[in-house]
């Protein structure tokens, strides 16, 4: 686009890698060598970056949530507690990884691996910069969804092989949740794909850059659905029923200790990053920022946005209580699913209108944005009312204060002070 392709151009690390590959080809290496080299470099880069991010975010999350709770958070290990994640990682590595006697050994051992791998693989299709995509698949979005759903099987493997009724209960709840919200994810992402006309994530980012607008503003229903569905996929509060500590010990990873638990823990953060990355790529313009990428490297912009979205998830964890499993599923099937379907319908109609009427983007997009926004607000309020959710009482239900001893006020509908 607007970047010159010198190898020292840090605004896109793909330039340096590209130059290296050119060099390898000039040396006359067979065709597969540049291919493998580029893959290896990308894989190593992603691995390093994800692991370091997870370590950093363990610290950030605990400090930020601590500040929200009016306390300090870890500050003993290292300066200001910065070595806390290192201490956590070392502790997990040194602990004995117990396998309970009645557990199904193969599955028990496989489950953490199967949880961890898909969350890493998802990063393969995400564009960190113009030339920084590990696997520029034509069906990127489909790949995301498909790989994300392997998580469900892994959770079930973990819960079942533990031979522990609480683990199984937790696993069942999690699977029910994950399946419900995957459908919503698919429909919502379908809306975004329809608008852009391509499933390739690089294309979607390029579309947002070309038209100078983020899909966030054009598809509010979609974003809302994906943010909520993403929170559920991450097993994060307010939907962390799977590992609700006060309820079922630790859900499907009750029986896991040591580095096996470390895998689950890390997979949760990685899933969080993956979802944040997807939101940023699809809805927030990816690595572009309306021209700023000429001065600031694109991947830095991407990382900043991604961390910002993840911070909002941390914020909601520190603040909101959690829903019950049946309430959550009722929300998915009765509320979000019809809205997601309507979203697809409306988006499809808009795309058709755009192509047939041959409107210019200057007129079409603001119109669509306004219509979508208005529709989102109207549908959310209207559908909630139709389902019977009334406005929460502004004045909360208060106790009756009395001096009559021995009186009974049960079922009283007298006005409250």
């Amino acid at each position, binding site marked *: 686009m607007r970047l010159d392709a010198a190898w020292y151009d840090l605004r896109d690390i793909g330039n340096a890698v590209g130059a290296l590959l050119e060099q390898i080809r000039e040396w006359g290496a067979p065709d597969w060598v540049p291919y493998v080299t580029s893959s290896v470099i990308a894989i190593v880069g992603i691995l390093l970056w994800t692991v370091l991010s997870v370590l950093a975010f363990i610290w950030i999350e605990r400090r930020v949530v601590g500040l929200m709770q009016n306390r300090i958070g870890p500050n003993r290990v290292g300066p200001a507690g910065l070595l806390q994640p290192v201490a956590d990682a070392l502790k997990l590595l040194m602990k004995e990884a117990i396998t309970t006697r009645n557990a199904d050994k193969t599955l028990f051992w496989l489950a953490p691996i199967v949880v961890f791998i898909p969350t890493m693989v998802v990063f393969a299709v995400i564009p960190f910069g113009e030339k920084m995509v590990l696997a520029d698949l034509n069906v990127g979005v489909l790949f995301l969804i498909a790989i994300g759903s392997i998580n469900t099987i892994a959770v079930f493997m973990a819960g079942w092989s533990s031979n522990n009724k609480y683990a199984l209960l937790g696993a069942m709840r999690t699977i029910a949740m994950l399946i419900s919200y995957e459908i919503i994810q698919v429909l919502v992402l379908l809306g975004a794909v329809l608008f852009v006309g391509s499933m390739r994530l690089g294309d979607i980012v390029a579309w947002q850059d070309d038209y100078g607008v983020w899909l966030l503003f054009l598809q509010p229903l979609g974003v809302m659905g994906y943010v909520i569905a993403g929170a559920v996929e991450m097993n994060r509060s307010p939907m962390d029923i799977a590992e*609700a500590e006060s309820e079922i010990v630790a859900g499907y990873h009750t029986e896991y200790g040591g580095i096996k638990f470390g895998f689950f823990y890390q997979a949760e953060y990685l899933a969080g990053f993956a979802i944040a990355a997807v939101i940023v790529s699809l809805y927030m313009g990816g690595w572009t920022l309306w021209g700023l990428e000429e001065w600031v490297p694109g991947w830095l912009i991407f990382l900043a946005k991604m961390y910002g979205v993840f911070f909002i998830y941390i914020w909601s964890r520190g603040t909101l209580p959690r829903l019950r499993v049946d309430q959550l599923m009722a929300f998915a099937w009765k509320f979000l699913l019809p809205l997601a379907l309507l979203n697809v319908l409306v988006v499809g109609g808009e795309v058709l209108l755009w192509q047939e009427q041959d409107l210019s983007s200057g007129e079409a997009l603001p119109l669509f944005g306004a219509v979508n926004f208005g529709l989102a607000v109207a549908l959310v309020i209207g559908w909630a009312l139709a389902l019977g959710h009334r406005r929460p009482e502004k004045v909360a*239900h208060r106790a009756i204060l009395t001096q009559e*001893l021995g009186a009974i006020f049960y079922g009283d509908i007298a006005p409250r002070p």
Partner: protein
Amino acid sequence: MTLDGEKIIDADMVIGYLHRSMEKLAEERTYTQNIPFTDRTDYLAAMTGNLAYVLAVEKLCGVEAPERAHWLRMIMSELQRIASHSVAVGIFANDCGAWQTPVMHMFRDREKILDLFEMACGARLTTNYMRIGGVSRDVPPEFMPAAHKLVKELPKKLDEYEDLLLSNEIIVARSRGIAVLTPEQAIAHSVSGPMLRASGVAWDIRKADPYAAYDKVDFDIAVGTDGDVYDRFVVRLAEMRQSVRILEQALDMMPEGPVHAILPTATVQPIGNPVAPLAIRPPVGEAYGCIESPRGELGFYIVSDGSPAPFRFHIRSPSYINLTPLKLMSVGRTVADAIVILGSVDIVVGEIDR
């Protein structure tokens, strides 16, 4: 729990893991030596535990504490009530899933109250402050200004907690309509305290049978109307407000004077100094003394045979008896609800198992 998927079919209580046989141990220790036991039954409300025991023994001996001791006892009980309800409300929000944020905020206020206790008697949690015939010592001069400051700050904080917690969608969804107890059921199951008042029955021992200067201050009984988990929550927050009201009046109205009665040598044969005896020999007889602790009716049934140790020392602990309708409330609900229901009963295991 016997489950069918997520639904509870049967629930059974398995307790006794903290059974320390306090009732048996108390039969070998003198009446004054038993006061620290009462701290450790309900360790989140030690002052009220002490007070109930001391009132029962005073009833047995026919001893009356001096005026200032009554007011000090009342102030300490109300401070303890606020501290205990802070824990109850915070932990309830935690059970609903709000990751300890409300707990931390409410503990901030509780810390101030525990600092006041440390000023008064040297200990934060297991206070051992009350004595048979009064309190162990008078409060130091820095206590009153600190208490006044706290009482000025608390209403604003309570407003904040009520606003944030009571109208939160998720807390309302998790607790409205869950585990309803009708007043007839509550009374039949001997439920007492905020759980009984949430079911609509206006019964508070501080009003029914006033002890320790409660008849000299003005306060209301907070009553709910639905008997569900949400109402228990609401009642506890309202009681905290009433406690602040009592404290405002008590801190101003407290008279000067001695804080420990001189025990009459004839009926109660004190061993050692009559003001702070090492042991007493109460007259032969029995007494049942009860107070309104933050969890309900805390009663002590003491039988004396004239020796320095009680012949029978029974603790009527509210947490234990409030658990009686647990099966009634849980059957038919899901596992997630069971946690919230147990949180609403506000148990302290030390009191259940003694």
